[in-house]
């Protein structure tokens, strides 16, 4: 920096060394190269959040198009926090998230440990778990909807072989718990592989010498896994936890396609409720308030994990 300034002062224009000139144009060029990506992302994320905050303090419902967008203070937030439907959706979403994290991380850890071993057919196993991750959510949702259909699916067909009364169980939109079970299965089937791939990458960067050292110290099997593998896997676990928690917290399309929130409203999640408020009720003020809280919730979760694991390490 200082170098550049001094040469600029001494040398007349056009006689600056190429390197200095390059550094100056480089910086401008650098920002120009970053600009398109940043502008696109600002337009589709920053603009909506600002607009949501603004809308959330206003009355803005397209169904009452003639009414002015008047300022209503925190009325939308008050309505939300006292809404039984929103509170129930919050409770369900948090419950779903906790169960999902516990089960999915455990299953993914098992898968990752399996794939970390060299064995005949490892490529086949890895390719086959990638397929459920890569197909659209629409596919995973409709696929499991077919599987759990009493007529078209195999679940009741096989269950009927165990016990005749189970041959025509209705799963979706009949019982609350069975509906949740099917949603959970479809969602986990699709998302466990991604978590497993991240954890696998974490396992692969642990040097084998560490295990050898542990074995010399007498730690093998489960002890070695708990004392050696898990602590070293922490960075990968943080990444996996953040991804999976946010996904579960924002779950929408599986629910929309499989149950449409039913039976009744018993599988409505926060994102589903927000979608309904925007698109069906066209209430952009109230919906804005719900969105703002959704973003805050996501930020708290992500920030919480980062903080939790950072203080743990020092």
């Amino acid at each position, binding site marked *: 920096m200082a170098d550049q300034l001094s040469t600029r002062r001494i040398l007349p224009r056009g006689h600056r060394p190429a390197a200095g000139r390059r550094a100056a144009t480089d910086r401008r060029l650098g920002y120009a*190269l970053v600009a398109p990506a940043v502008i696109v992302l600002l337009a589709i994320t920053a603009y*909506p959040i600002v607009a949501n905050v603004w809308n959330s303090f206003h009355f803005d419902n397209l169904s009452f198009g003639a009414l002015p967008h008047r300022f209503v203070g925190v009325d939308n937030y008050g309505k939300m926090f006292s809404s039984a439907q929103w509170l129930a959706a919050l409770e369900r979403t948090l419950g779903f998230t906790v169960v999902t994290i516990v089960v999915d991380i455990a299953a993914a850890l098992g898968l990752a440990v399996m794939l970390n071993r060299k*064995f005949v057919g490892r490529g086949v196993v890895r390719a086959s778990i990638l*397929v459920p991750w890569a197909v659209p959510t629409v596919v995973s949702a409709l696929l499991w909807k077919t599987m759990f259909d009493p007529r078209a699916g195999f679940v009741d067909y096989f269950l009927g072989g165990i016990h005749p009364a189970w041959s025509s169980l209705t799963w979706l939109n009949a019982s609350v718990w069975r509906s949740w079970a099917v949603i959970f299965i479809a969602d986990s089937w699709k998302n466990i592989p991604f978590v497993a791939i991240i954890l696998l990458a974490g396992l692969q960067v642990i040097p084998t010498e560490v295990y050898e050292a542990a074995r010399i110290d007498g730690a093998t099997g489960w002890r070695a896994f708990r004392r050696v593998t898990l602590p070293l896997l922490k960075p990968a676990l943080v990444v996996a936890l953040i991804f999976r928690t946010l996904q579960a917290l924002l779950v929408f399309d599986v629910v929309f396609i499989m149950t449409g929130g039913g039976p009744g409203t018993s599988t409505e999640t926060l994102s589903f409720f927000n979608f309904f408020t925007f*698109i069906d009720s066209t209430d952009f003020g109230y*919906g804005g308030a719900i969105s703002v809280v959704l973003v805050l919730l*996501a930020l708290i979760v992500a920030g919480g994990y980062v903080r939790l694991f950072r203080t743990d390490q020092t």
Partner: protein
Amino acid sequence: MNAAAVASAGAAARPRRRARSRRKAVRETLFYLAAAIVVLIALFPFYWILRTSLESSAQVAAGVGGRNGVIPGHLSFSAYTAIFRQQHFLTPLINSVIVALATTVLTVITGSLAGYALARMNLRGGGAILAFILLAGFFPPLAMIGPLFLLFRDLGILDSIYPLILVYCVYTMPITTWLLKNFFEQIPRELEEAALVDGASRLQTLRRVIIPVAVPGVFTAAILSFILAWNDFIFAVSFLRTQSNFTAPLSIVTFGESQFQVFYNLIDAAVVIISIPIALLVLLAQRRIVSGLTAGSFR
């Protein structure tokens, strides 16, 4: 130690060794059994979808059992002809291809420019810019649809696939930029410095030297972008209204619904068709996808 003692010690060790090797064999068998179960859980549903899609509507109505068991007694392509002839599935398929390809091109170009600048040009505030791009990937899609719905409505582009190209960048841009930034960082600096010394400009260097070396990284980014854009449901269901403007995932949800019965053969035929390009990408580029997903995610 006399000969008898050595012999008896050897005899005692043999069964112990045999027991250990048997235990090892049992453990190996269990391991392979577990691996087989994983593959079965991942793939059996796809077999079932294919099987259902090859049933006639009458077979679906009759339910599983008898001649329609796990292996169907009779195959029919009626579901496939029905979704193309009666449900006009080709239009949403073409819409999806257009949007996914356009998103991929847009993301790969802007993402590699940004990734290059962030990797090589010592931008002031580069860390903050990268943090913003990555954070955008965690932004709740549902918090985007309200204001974007109003904006597209005011611009008269609400029921159109073209704004989706921009919106899908929220899925594709963060991972692409991150992946390519890591990729550019691994290319030796000497390569471009040689070109710069030879008098090439930055952009010329980028085009002639860096991009050819970066082709594998760009390719990985393109595959991931295509998958992510192809898979969207949330934005399509929020913004699109007319059947002929639907993307493929959205149009499937409206298939096979009749008042009395759901025709799973129609739904599953469409499910098979939209899964095929994704399954092919996974099979052909398995390694690339895995390395792309995990590119320097924790260092």
